[in-house]
């Protein structure tokens, strides 16, 4: 075979697009379906990436092609055809609407319940707005303050150009390309994501949020997030938003890496509300995420997540407690309704001395859904005086759903202290009766009880988020009482 160059590929892609009636415009660009080394190269080239990045992606691709899709999770679904996916698509241009009247009334109803302001509603629903939106102006002021403190917060594709030394040093250091099937896939083809660096001793004055980062429109299918907190720094990072996200891409495989150097603290909160599929379980997003944080001495990483969306969630935000006296925390609420399936939990790997971890997981299953907690607590033989406390509680609503717990506890040090407890319960009839008696209707009463059940986790969310998340729980469980 004669040598096939990138130019040939480009030529081919061009003609192919033409052949099949594709058209190119500035806002939307999609590669042909399928994945091979050339596609990986093309993505990298598209992003104008340096040589080492291209090689890194290619390495990941090679590893990925040797791997098999994991099957151990307690979920059943039709596996995606990986050669049927287009691996590069710039943010799609959605039809601009002229006023909120044109927006799907269901969506508006949800916004109203969540208490999202009219301006934000417009932005989320992609309605053209004339005046400068609050969030935009806020974002501009944000940028200024951040720059003064020396905090870097930008899309990872820009960071690769502007701060290659930082990205190169840390990317893949916590989640190696060969970590798992989806992480490898992400490493090979990630389109964009966020990069955040907090310099030594700086405490980030505001919650960083992808939600407010306006210079990137819409999140990609293969998102990559890298947060580095240098010595003695602090950052609170928010991901996702409570508003329902309707995404055409069925498969989402994101990777999030957190690095907390000595004495640093990272607080990472997620609210995820992807399209869960309709009531009969058709459609919906598959969410296969790899999230992991590394703690050096005296560092602390805290994961908080509220999962209400996705047809399938496969997600285990983990902490590697490498440094002495480091702390890992995991607070989670996972709500599944209708035909949703969630297999989520955490891993706490204790390597350093006097390391501590806390796991609080609340699972709520309703409808015909399946909700699993899967967690690992591992105490290495050198991890003196390690301490772990885990609690997973499940709430079942209806007798067609399931709640499962799969905790793995591995202790190799005698000074380890580990406690694990799990309970499963339902909303008591007497609880409901009590509320009904006092004039609270059943639906509201359930919301009240669910909120009480999840309070320990909701309390860990940043304030604005917590209010919205609370409402989100109500909406997710709407109509689940028979």
């Amino acid at each position: 075979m004669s040598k096939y160059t990138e130019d040939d590929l480009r030529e081919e892609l061009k003609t192919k697009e033409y052949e099949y009636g594709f058209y190119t415009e500035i806002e939307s660009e999609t590669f042909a379906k399928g994945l091979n080394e050339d596609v990986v190269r093309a993505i990298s080239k598209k992003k104008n990436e340096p040589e080492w990045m291209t090689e890194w992606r290619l390495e990941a691709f090679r590893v990925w092609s040797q791997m098999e899709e994991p099957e151990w999770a307690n979920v059943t679904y039709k596996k995606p055809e990986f050669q049927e996916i287009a691996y590069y698509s710039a943010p799609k241009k959605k039809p601009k609407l002229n006023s909120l009247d044109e927006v799907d009334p269901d969506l508006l109803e949800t916004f109203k319940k969540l208490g999202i302001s009219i301006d934000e509603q417009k932005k989320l629903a992609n309605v053209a707005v004339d005046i400068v939106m609050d969030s935009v102006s806020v974002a501009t002021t944000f940028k200024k303050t951040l720059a003064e403190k020396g905090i870097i917060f930008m899309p990872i594709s820009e960071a690769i150009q502007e701060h290659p030394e930082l990205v190169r040093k840390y990317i893949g250091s916590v989640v190696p390309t060969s970590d798992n099937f989806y992480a490898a896939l992400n490493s090979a083809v990630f389109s964009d994501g966020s990069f955040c660096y907090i310099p030594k001793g700086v405490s980030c004055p505001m919650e960083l949020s992808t939600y407010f980062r306006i210079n990137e429109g819409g999140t990609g299918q293969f998102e990559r997030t890298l947060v580095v907190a240098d010595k003695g720094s602090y950052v609170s990072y928010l991901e996702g938003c409570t508003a329902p996200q309707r995404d055409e891409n069925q498969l989402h495989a994101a990777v999030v890496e957190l690095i907390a150097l000595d004495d640093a603290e990272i607080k990472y909160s997620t609210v995820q509300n992807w399209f869960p599929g309709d009531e009969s379980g058709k459609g919906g997003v598959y969410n296969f995420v790899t999230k992991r944080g590394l703690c050096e001495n005296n560092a602390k990483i805290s994961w908080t997540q509220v999962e209400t969306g996705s047809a399938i969630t496969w997600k285990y935000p983990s902490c590697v407690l490498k440094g002495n006296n480091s702390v890992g925390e995991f607070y989670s609420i996972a709500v599944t309704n209708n035909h949703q399936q969630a297999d989520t939990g955490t891993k706490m790997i204790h390597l350093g001395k006097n390391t501590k971890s806390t796991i609080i997981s609340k699972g709520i299953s309703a409808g015909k859904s399946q909700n699993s907690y899967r967690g690992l607590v591992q105490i290495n033989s050198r991890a003196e005086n390690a301490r772990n406390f885990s609690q997973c509680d499940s709430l079942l609503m209806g007798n067609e759903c399931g709640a499962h717990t799969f905790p793995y506890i591995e202790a190799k040090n005698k000074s380890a202290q580990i406690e694990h407890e799990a309970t499963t319960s339902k909303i008591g009839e007497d609880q409901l009766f009590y509320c009904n008696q006092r004039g609270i209707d059943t639906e509201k009463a359930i919301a009240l009880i669910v909120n009480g059940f999840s309070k320990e986790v909701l309390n860990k969310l940043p304030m604005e988020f917590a209010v919205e998340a609370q409402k989100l729980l109500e909406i997710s469980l709407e109509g689940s009482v028979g």
Partner: protein
Amino acid sequence: MELKDKLLSSYVAFENRVDTNTDVHEIRSEALENFEELGFPTRKLEAWKYTSLNSVLKQDYSLFPDRVEAIELADVKKYFIHEIDAYKVVFINGKYSSFLSQTTHEHYDVCLMSSALTNAKYKPVIDKYFNKVAKQDNLTSLNTAFATEGAYINIPKNTEVKKPIQILNFTTGSEAASMIQPRNLIIVGENSQVQIIERHQSLTSNAVLTNVVTEIFADKASNVDYYKIQNDEITASLVDNSYIEQQSNSVVSVHTFSFGGNITRNNLNFYQKGEHIDSILKGITIIEGKQHVDHHTLVHHIEPNCESHQDYKGIYDERSTGVFNGKVIVEKEAQKTNAYQQNNNVLVSDKATINAKPQLEIFADDVKCSHGCTIGQLDDDALFYMQQRGIPQKEGRALLMFAFANTVLESVKIPEVKQRITKLIAKKLNVKVGFDL
């Protein structure tokens, strides 16, 4: 030759020794095919993630230890609970020893699996129960294919068995390494009661691999009290596969005391096929050296209004490893289930390891299910308190460990068994106990 091939190729020779013209033999052949397909479990299987049989399977086992050795009662008396009058079903190298045994056919059958399998009189019972509750997994299938001997206990309804039944398997080690596969079948009729004590004991330091399958059928309102004492030589490995099917209102409790052996794996499975059932699973594990004990339990709640109680305590010293994998499944129909699972562990040495995996799979909403799992140390303050009051450190530690294990010990219903276990623990901890528990 690998053990698997050796087993497969020995099947022809095995067929020469048994009657191949029976229904049971068909079950055997099927089981062999099943084993041929599955092979021995490896750590790649989730159920065997923490236990590797590799070192055990490397031995060149003699598969049908033939020679029946005469053993004097005096030599093995200590392995019996000899303080009480009991029925005894004793096997030496997998062969029945009538000299040491005391069986009966009066009112109920306490006898041999071999006669039950071959005697036409028992055919209806065998057809109904043999291999019916046992899972068709690799090691159970292997046992089904080759097993010919074991204890057969059939208690008709409304009968209380007056004295406990002891099942003992001795291996004399006349061959360098031997593999034995006993098969027990226990049927307990409506309203009946029975107490059983099971023990496997190697008498020399030659390698032994025991792969035992026990099927227990507990009919309505029956009561089965089962004790497994595992305190074998360091060269003896044991895979115990127990399957228990319970009908309405029955109570079955199984106590497993694991104090010794090379690799010990207990697969204990309960299937609740009626309402108002109580299943009790308790265990104490105290090991050291390089010993490995793996408790793998399953309680399958199929019908409503049932209970299960699990309580496993473990104390691990030196380089020993312990595994606890407890699984509770609550089916959709099994409303009002009350499932409780508790697993507490103490690591005494830095080289010891414990892997715990308490699992819950729940499909019903009106249930009370909880599990707790802890790993920790003995309370230093309590130890200090005792030392201040003149109790030496070693005895103080032992006292704390007794207290730790006591929730399991106190539910032992046969006083002599409790005493024996207490003595075994005291010996393990190297103390003299001057108190009654």
